């Protein structure tokens, strides 16, 4: 983020908020509460509106993708504001961009969700907004009653003044409170024991709108004079438009305009993915029919001969050479040479697509000096940047409204579809809504990178792991980043502080960058999904090969509670004992120690990321003819303090199913430069039948600080499944997806 604040003084009076953005940079927000920041007489600051009947509307500044942040963040405000949760409703706030002397700042704080930071980065901010507003209401009441502020307190929705026996509802105080300066000293925040809302069972605040079809997603945007647009995209990766014949397309009733969209140079940093031909019409269907009627010639692409076979062959060959050593703890070679048993395995993790159920879409209206964007996006500031890049309009004149997002999973961290929509509106002068078809979405994604991992470990005579190496050949997702030196490409794919860092003395990580024309990006829990799968699967192999119990080996390695340094996602520390506690717990719940009949088995896995800890125990059956049945799932999380436990459980359910669905059947492949999958018939997300009714979720409380949740819950699901398959059938899954590998 480029937020810099120069001419704004950092002091309490202005209630400046300093927090870290999703991208990790420092974000300085404007005062959220303070004199003259209300937009109406009912508002106290930007976030809180209180009506005379005591109803409260709390602004939600973050994109809601289904992770529950739209409920959880207002819970924080309501807790400190001291109102009844039943009186609260929520309104979505737009991007709060403000021009400063030499950059931009954000009047609603940092906005954007990725890296499971939605709650953690707003934990202090939102509580302070509530507490400051409550303080102002108390001060307004005290002033009116002619008493000192400390003689007043609150009960939900009311300021009370004990000595006078007087009570004043918040609604009567808002106009006065909004005019008071904010004192320099921050009001104290509640103690965890005093919480009435945080940590309690609450339902999704706008669920009624969702189940009655009233919720407006981006795709549901309807604006005056709006036209509909689609883009014909190249069948071959990174191919550019050479020429097109639109005679037949323009004959379709309702087709209004057809033109080329210029794309970036292949491999260069991108605003949009690739060039194409836009069709604008007076309805979605006319635009789609117009697109079907186009005759397009494409330039030969540099990726025309790319194939998955070639990519995997190259990775195999790379692992026969020496790569870039990115971590080398202890004396790996000597330790490995001393081992009495060495175990090795290669694992293949495929490219996968995000496939959020709401296809990419964006409304854009570009006028001469301003632009309006309505989009489902995880990064509204990125949407603003993308629209500015293609229109030349200053960002402070680009208004970005966020809708509820029909799934993100990392896909909507990238705002390429916003740039496309802005390009089409700029070209035509019309307000337009761009829609991607499902085929557009599956074939044109920022895919999770595929990689070939080699794991090798040596154990001593006591079964202790004395040396461990992971060697990875993959297509780094950092390949198209501006100013990214080649020697840093590994950083997106290997996380050196992950397990078993600090737990095995002699540890080496090695990376080999490979290329393929498939665009790559961040997919929920990015490389943790790959690394947890291979590490937790390999641990199982290592245990069996060295005559140890897979649970006991994990517990021996993880040990008791202590803080280890951890850079990157979820640092600055990692406490392996919290993983020990979780895996013991799930093992116990699933009766891990109980012998199962042939064809039935239990698998375990655990992983730390983004500050949170998760573990899975899964029980499966594998029939003689290779039919897999997932019989029972136990999923547990330690996310510190669970602010909104109902949503934490929902994420545990959904994240587990995401991990399993992907492991069971999902892979993107390339032949002759073309993505071979196109829709849900050949990119088969799991359906309800794959997921057993016997599915338990558990939240193990830890301390009084929340961690993220959305990505933590996913990585350990797939390896628990693979380990269960091994326990049931003796078949080790080393290649994902599982597909029909179990068929005899």
């Amino acid at each position, binding site marked *: 983020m480029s937020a810099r604040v120069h001419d704004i003084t950092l002091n309490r009076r202005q209630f400046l908020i300093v927090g870290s953005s999703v991208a990790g940079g420092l974000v300085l927000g404007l005062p959220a509460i303070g004199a003259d920041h209300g937009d109406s007489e009912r508002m106290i600051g930007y976030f809180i509106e209180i009506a005379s009947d005591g109803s409260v509307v709390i602004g939600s500044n973050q994109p809601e993708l289904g992770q529950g942040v739209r409920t959880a963040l207002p819970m924080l405000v309501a807790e400190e504001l001291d109102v009844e949760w039943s009186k609260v409703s929520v309104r979505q706030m737009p991007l709060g961009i403000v021009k400063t002397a030499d950059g931009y700042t954000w009047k609603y704080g940092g906005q954007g969700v990725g890296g499971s930071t939605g709650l953690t980065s707003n934990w202090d901010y939102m509580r302070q907004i509530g507490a400051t507003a409550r303080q102002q209401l108390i001060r307004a009441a005290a002033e009116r009653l002619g008493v000192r502020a400390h003689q007043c307190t609150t009960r939900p929705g009311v300021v009370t003044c004990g000595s006078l026996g007087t009570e004043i509802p918040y609604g009567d105080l808002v106009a006065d409170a909004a005019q008071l300066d904010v004192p320099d000293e921050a009001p104290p925040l509640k103690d965890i024991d005093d919480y009435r809302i945080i940590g309690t069972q609450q339902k999704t605040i706008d669920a009624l709108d969702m189940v009655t079809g009233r919720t407006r997603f981006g795709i549901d945007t309807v604006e005056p004079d709006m036209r509909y647009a689609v883009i014909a995209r190249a069948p071959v990766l990174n191919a550019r438009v050479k020429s097109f014949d639109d005679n037949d397309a323009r004959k379709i009733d309702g087709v209004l305009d057809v033109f080329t969209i210029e794309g970036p140079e292949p491999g260069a940093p991108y605003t949009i993915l690739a060039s194409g031909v836009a069709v604008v019409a007076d309805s979605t269907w006319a635009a789609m029919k117009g697109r079907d009627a186009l005759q397009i010639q494409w330039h030969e692409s540099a990726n025309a001969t790319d194939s998955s076979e070639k990519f995997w062959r190259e990775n195999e060959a790379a692992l026969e050479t020496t790569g870039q050593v990115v971590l080398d703890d202890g004396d790996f070679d000597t330790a490995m040479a001393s081992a009495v048993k060495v175990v090795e395995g290669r694992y293949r993790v495929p490219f996968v697509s995000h496939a959020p159920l709401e296809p990419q879409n964006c409304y854009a209206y570009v006028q001469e000096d301003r632009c309006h964007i309505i989009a489902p996006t995880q990064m509204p500031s990125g949407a603003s940047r993308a629209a500015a890049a293609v229109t030349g309009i200053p960002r402070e004149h680009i208004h970005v409204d966020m809708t509820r997002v029909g799934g993100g999973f990392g896909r909507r961290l990238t705002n390429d579809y916003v740039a496309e929509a802005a390009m089409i509106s700029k070209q035509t002068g019309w307000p337009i809504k761009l829609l991607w078809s499902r085929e557009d979405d599956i074939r044109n994604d920022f895919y999770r990178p595929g990689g070939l991992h080699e794991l090798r470990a040596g154990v001593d005579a006591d079964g202790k792991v004395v040396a461990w190496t992971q060697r990875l050949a993959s297509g780094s997702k950092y390949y198209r980043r501006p100013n990214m030196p080649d020697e840093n490409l590994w950083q997106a794919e290997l996380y050196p502080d992950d397990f078993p860092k600090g737990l095995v003395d002699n540890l080496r990580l090695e990376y080999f960058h490979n290329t393929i024309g498939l665009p790559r990006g961040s997919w929920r829990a990015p490389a943790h999904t790959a690394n947890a799968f291979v590490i937790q699967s390999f641990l199982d192999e290592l245990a069996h090969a060295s005559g140890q119990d897979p649970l006991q080996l994990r517990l021996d390695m993880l040990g008791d509670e202590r803080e280890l340094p951890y850079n990157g996602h979820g640092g600055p520390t990692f406490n392996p004992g919290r993983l020990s506690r979780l895996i013991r717990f799930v093992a116990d719940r699933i009766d891990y120690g109980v012998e199962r009949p042939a064809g039935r088995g239990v698998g375990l896995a655990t992983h730390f990321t983004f500050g949170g800890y998760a573990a899975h125990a899964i029980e499966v059956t594998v029939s003689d003819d290779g039919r897999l049945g997932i019989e029972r799932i136990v999923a547990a999380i330690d996310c510190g303090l669970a602010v909104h436990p109902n949503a934490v459980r929902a994420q545990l359910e959904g994240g587990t199913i*995401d991990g399993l669905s992907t492991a069971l059947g999902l892979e993107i492949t390339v032949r002759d430069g073309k993505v071979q999958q196109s*829709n849900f018939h050949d990119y088969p997300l799991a359906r309800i039948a794959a997921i057993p009714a016997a599915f338990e979720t558990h939240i193990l409380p830890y301390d009084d600080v929340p961690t993220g949740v959305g990505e933590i819950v996913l990585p350990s699901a797939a390896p628990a499944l693979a380990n269960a398959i091994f326990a049931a059938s003796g078949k080790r899954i080393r290649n994902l997806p599982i597909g029909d590998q179990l068929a005899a």
Partner: protein
Amino acid sequence: MTSFKINTESVDFDGDPGTPLLWVIRDHLNLTGTKYGCGIGQCGSCIVHVDGRAAVSCVMPVSGVDGRSITTIEGLAATQAEPHPVQQAWLELDVPQCGFCQPGQIMATVDFLKRHPRPTDEDIDKNITNLCRCGTYVRIRKAIHRAAELMAAGEGT
């Protein structure tokens, strides 16, 4: 000209008779609760009722519903104040995450429960095939059973 009834309204559509019903509902009738997810009848986000039976509207030409009666998610409950028992069950179990697939899930379930008023898990596995990318299947399964209970008890009918 294609004429049909949608929820409580009578509608005439004089555009391309090959237009999928989904796009007539969304673009022309502005009922956006019915979603586009795949366009090939795979995901179920576009399920509506045609003469009371669930149908994927993304692959059904509007000409096919001439003279027929369509119900969309917006028309499922008699009044906004009183959701359909299936919607009530969805609220009780707090099913939605992103929420995008849920109108289709609910429309599929309402039809399913007419034929399987006391469904087993196996009945659900065989008949409910809508996709949910967020993975709300655990709660969908519970909500289907709960809706069956509510309907058996005669609530909200």
